[in-house]
């Protein structure tokens, strides 16, 4: 082998070794002791409470002159109450329900998916029924998940503000 070729081959092997080493130290390989988001599912949210969450969300939205869709699902991710404000975007009807459902099914705020994807963890988009956009928040009662609220129609940040107002109004 010519000296230049030998050098090139050596470099290639070194590169592969570095790549293999990098793989071993991937953050995905870490095995945590505890489960993440280990929140038990509770009794499904009542209509009264779901409507209280929607009323609080709509109040916040109206205060800011925003027009949003707000959906509340139960602990099974199924629709309990929904309201579309006058003039709210039609495409966001399904998105608001999707955000609420994803927050309930994955026991976390949909913002977590958004941030994950932003950070480069694109595999998150391959998980079933995920929506990687903030504005979906679980509703807890005594540490148990009883439902979730989802808002859509504005920017993600606007959706989240309104969503939080709704969730905070009924959490215990």
């Amino acid at each position: 082998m010519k000296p230049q070729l030998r050098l090139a081959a050596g470099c290639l092997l070194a590169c592969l070794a570095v790549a293999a080493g990098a793989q071993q130290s991937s953050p995905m390989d870490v095995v945590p002791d505890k489960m993440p988001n280990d929140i038990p599912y509770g009794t499904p949210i009542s209509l009264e409470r779901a409507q209280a969450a929607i009323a609080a969300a709509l109040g916040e939205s109206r205060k800011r002159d925003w027009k949003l869709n707000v959906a509340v699902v139960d602990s099974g991710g199924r629709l309990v109450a929904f309201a579309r404000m006058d003039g709210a975007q039609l495409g966001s009807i399904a998105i608001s329900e999707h955000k609420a459902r994803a927050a309930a099914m994955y026991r976390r705020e949909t913002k977590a998916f958004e941030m994950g994807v932003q950070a480069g963890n694109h595999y998150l988009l391959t998980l079933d029924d995920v929506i990687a956009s903030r504005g979906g928040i679980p509703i807890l009662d005594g540490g148990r998940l009883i439902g979730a609220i989802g808002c859509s129609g504005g920017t993600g940040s606007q959706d989240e503000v309104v969503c939080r107002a709704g969730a905070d109004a009924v959490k215990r």
Partner: protein
Amino acid sequence: MKTRPVLTLEDCRKISAAAEAEAKRNQWNVCIAILDDGGHLLHLVRMDGASPANARIAIEKGRTAAESRRSSAVWEERIKAGRNSMLGMPGITPVQGGLPIIVEGVCVGGVGVSGVQSHEDEQIAAAGIKALA
């Protein structure tokens, strides 16, 4: 250019509250869905005790009425009369319990109810729409 009436959230609240009152009066637990004339959901309440299936069915009955401008019972009757081909109509849920909301001769949306017997579902929907007048 033509103008037409449009349902507001306030209208939906009126319809929904009246429908819910009719259901409660009879001790029925149902889901009540209100959709606009394009078949897009405006308002939904699922009373405690109504199932997740009721939520889906209520929306589809309401959509059937809103988009076809006639009660979902009309579709059910046609099929019962032997028009089996109507089962293949796109977007149609041919089960009683969905009524169109007609204002000034124009269909502005639909109400769908699911949870009890179909004729009772329709009774609830009718009570809701009546509150709009």
